[in-house]
């Protein structure tokens, strides 16, 4: 890690060397380690140290950008030249393209020294415990355990000067054997709260209960969704419709719907990058403080997230949602929350005459964004519920469902919520997650059943 002063020195070199009207420099430094295990043995074990400098320059109403992993004077100069050259090529925008001005951001706690220093042997010890638990029941353990830190320093020529370091841990495990499979996932800024026994037990019990799955006819069913499954649904609608880019380009299901009842009155969903219950962070990738944005209040559509660019088009203020460079995916919400209710999974099961319990989804993808129709498979725990009890494990099912319709008929919501983070980060870890409850939904459409072989 470079530290505040180390970052500042490089950022000031960039700003000092630029001849553009406005200049922004961003450093992202990662020190991340990840241990993967499969078939009850560690099979991949990696450590990454990466520092990258991103430069944006504004000339008139044009923006160019460049990035480099090298921090020497020549590389900085080359980056500035490339960014400037690209800005000069552009047709000036009709709408202003300015970098954000500085705003104060809230000091929040997001760093744990113990998490940052967690060693390969400590991760291996955690994994050994999971393997042991699985082994005692004749099962195999698989998964990934990731710990580390991400540092962000950002400065621009208008006075933005922001720096933070955050730690994080994620651990997911799948246990398999005897024809069953079960799953558990944990995420936090702080490893102190990680309970290996509890993580292992969830996956193990699900696997043992899930043996001998049988197919069921596809169709419409009442469903009980664990938080893992709810997270997939909420993250999906966030990426396709809850951001201003989709809204401004008429791609979003929120278009012409603000102020209208789109979901059930018991559903409230928001984004809050400052909430310590999630993967909180004080500012976005252009140094704008994070603000809470409510998307649905008691089911009524109320807003979308903005970055500086979409905000300037809308005459609004950025909500602190610019994504990682180059930022062209739009201001995608990354810290989602769904309001908990007063129920529990046990009560949901007890109150169900006939329905399906879903532990998690797999490979969820969008079919029709304007209607929020998505498809995906169930995985690692699908059960038939009959007369208030989970009676039979089921083969994996394919669903094809409008999420807006599903969230309009939520009958019960668990009091307990859980932070669910993505399983594999392709860009920067420990920044994205959703804190969601379990749900009971009155009507959910399954369009197919898998012929999955569960003999492993």
């Amino acid at each position, binding site marked *: 890690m470079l530290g505040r002063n180390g970052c500042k020195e490089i950022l000031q070199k960039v700003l000092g060397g630029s001849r553009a009207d406005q200049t922004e420099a961003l450093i992202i430094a990662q020190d991340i380690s990840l241990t993967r295990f499969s078939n009850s043995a*560690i099979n991949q074990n990696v450590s990454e140290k990466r520092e990258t400098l991103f430069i944006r320059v504004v000339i008139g109403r044009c923006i160019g950008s460049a990035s480099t992993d090298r921090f020497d004077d020549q590389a900085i100069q080359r980056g500035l030249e490339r960014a400037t050259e690209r800005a000069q*090529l552009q047709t000036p925008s009709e709408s202003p393209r300015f970098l954000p001005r500085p705003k104060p951001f809230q000091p929040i706690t997001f760093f744990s020294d113990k998490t940052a220093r967690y060693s390969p*042997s400590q991760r291996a010890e955690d994994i050994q415990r999971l393997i042991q638990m699985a082994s005692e029941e004749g099962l195999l353990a698989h998964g990934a355990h*990731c710990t580390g830190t991400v540092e962000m320093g950002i400065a621009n020529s208008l006075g933005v000067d922001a720096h933070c370091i955050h730690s994080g841990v994620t651990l997911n495990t799948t246990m398999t054997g005897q024809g069953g499979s079960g799953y558990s996932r944990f995420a936090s800024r702080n490893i102190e709260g990680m309970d290996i026994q509890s993580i292992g037990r969830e996956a193990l019990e699900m696997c043992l209960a899930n043996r001998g799955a049988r197919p069921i006819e596809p169709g419409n069913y009442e469903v009980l969704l664990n938080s893992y499954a709810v997270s997939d649904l909420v993250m999906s609608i966030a990426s396709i419709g809850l951001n201003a880019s989709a809204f401004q380009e008429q791609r979003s299901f929120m278009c012409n719907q603000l102020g209208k009842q789109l979901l059930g009155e018991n559903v409230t969903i928001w984004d809050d990058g400052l909430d310590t219950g999630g993967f909180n962070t004080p500012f976005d990738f252009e140094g704008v403080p994070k603000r809470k944005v409510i998307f649905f209040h008691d089911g009524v559509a109320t807003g979308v997230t903005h970055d500086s660019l979409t905000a300037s088009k809308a005459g609004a203020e950025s909500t602190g949602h610019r994504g990682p460079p180059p930022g062209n995916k739009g201001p995608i919400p990354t810290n989602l929350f769904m309001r908990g209710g007063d129920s529990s999974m046990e009560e949901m099961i007890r109150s169900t005459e006939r329905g399906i319990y879903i532990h998690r989804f*797999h490979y969820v993808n969008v079919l029709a964004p304007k209607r929020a129709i998505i498809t995906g498979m169930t995985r690692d725990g699908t059960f038939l519920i009959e007369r208030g009890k989970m009676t039979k494990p089921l083969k994996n099912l394919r669903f094809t469902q409008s999420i807006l319709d599903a969230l309009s008929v939520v009958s019960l919501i668990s009091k307990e919520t859980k932070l669910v983070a993505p399983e594999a980060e392709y860009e920067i870890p420990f920044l994205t997650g959703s804190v969601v409850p379990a749900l009971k939904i009155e009507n959910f459409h399954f369009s197919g059943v898998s012929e999955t072989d569960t003999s492993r």
Partner: protein
Amino acid sequence: MKDLIYTILDLGEAKGISYADVRVVEESLESYEVKDGLVEVAEWKEGYGFGIRVLHDGAWGFACSSSVNKIEMEDALTRALGIAESSGMARGKRIELFPIPTVQNRYHTPMERDPFAISPAEKLSLLIKAEGLMRGKPYISVSQAFMDIYKVRKVFASSEGSYIEQEIVECGAGIAATAAGGNEVQTRSYPNSFRGNFATGGYEFVEGLDLAGNAERTADEAAQLLFAQPSPSKVTTLILDSSQLALQIHESIGHPVELDRVMGMEVAYAGTSFLNFEKRGSFRCGSDSVNIIADATIPGGLGTFGYDDEGVKAQRIPILQNGIFLNFLASRETAREVGSQPNGTMRAESWNRIPLIRMTNINLQPGSWRFEDLVADTDDGIYMATNRGWSIDDQRLNFQFGTEVAWEIKKGKMGKMFKNPTYTGITPQFWNSCDGVAGEREWRLWGIPNCGKGQPGQVAPVGHGAAPARFRNVRVGVMG
């Protein structure tokens, strides 16, 4: 650099490491996007770093850094060794590598015009022209043009004595028009969705795409989709265009033949495979019309290279022959486990990732039909083109795809356009229902630059050759 790498490998040997490899990777990327008349993205990116992989006492360790110097490399070697020792705390079978010949060689992508030598202004003008032809057309709310060019110079050196230098150049481009009207939004893309088509090669590939020549048709089709009927829901005969078929090959054949998936090494994330060792050589995964080859040597393929990131030479391997499953994609580690051969398919996204088994160019061999004859021979069916979405289960059996557009086929003729087409199936049943593949005239290589795999996630550029093909008794029109 060579001296520094050998110093590090010698140091590894002195520390008693049984195997080590060092990769030093230098990357350049230019990315452009023109949207609604503005240059939305004009990005230049360079990356530089190294990764050291060690096999110590039968267990793996890997460490990397973006600071390329002797001190950092020595530190990374020490870290990698420590990590390998930790791996040993929960080691399964002792890992051994399939022996391969050592190689000292160089490889570079053949090309006519280095895309990095073309000025940014020229590249942007190509996009601006194409985007401008779509903008302002009736119902078009968003018009976009994309271009990405990428160059990687990488050195691979192993403690066994291999030293390989490669320079691989990739480029591609595409356009997309989004039409909006009422509560409907539809997008058409050319030549493919998700930023276009990509290949290894020079700028001549981008120029050959003729984005401008296809811009108006693309925009017109997007607008027509607003008024098209929804795709019918039924079981029918399906003809897929070659770009959608490329993704079908990718998801339902390419991933299932990755040996790490078969061996359970991806259980917790991407999943496993419906294929297993017993099925090799006998399992009918497709009809006689289905012949699939993994070919890392084909000119222009996005998965074409000289050597993989274990130093194994690029190869051409039969995967399905007359529908019978023959071979997995295998690494040195997995091949050793199952008594097979490594086939040059281990690639890492960059210096900061370990190599994984990745598809190369997984190509459906051309058949003997002409596309117009496939249509003429179909009494009642549907033709779908250009991928819009995909999903498949963790054993790669139950899949569902959506495409941008479809057309009815009635009595051997193409009819009305349908919007929101989808189809679903079970992998072996689907490929066994294939009764016709178009020939070389319509066979085309498609590049997918972002195949995701692994934890931490990494993307790989892969290719798929395909010609339009016909499938019988397919369920279409699944929409909730």
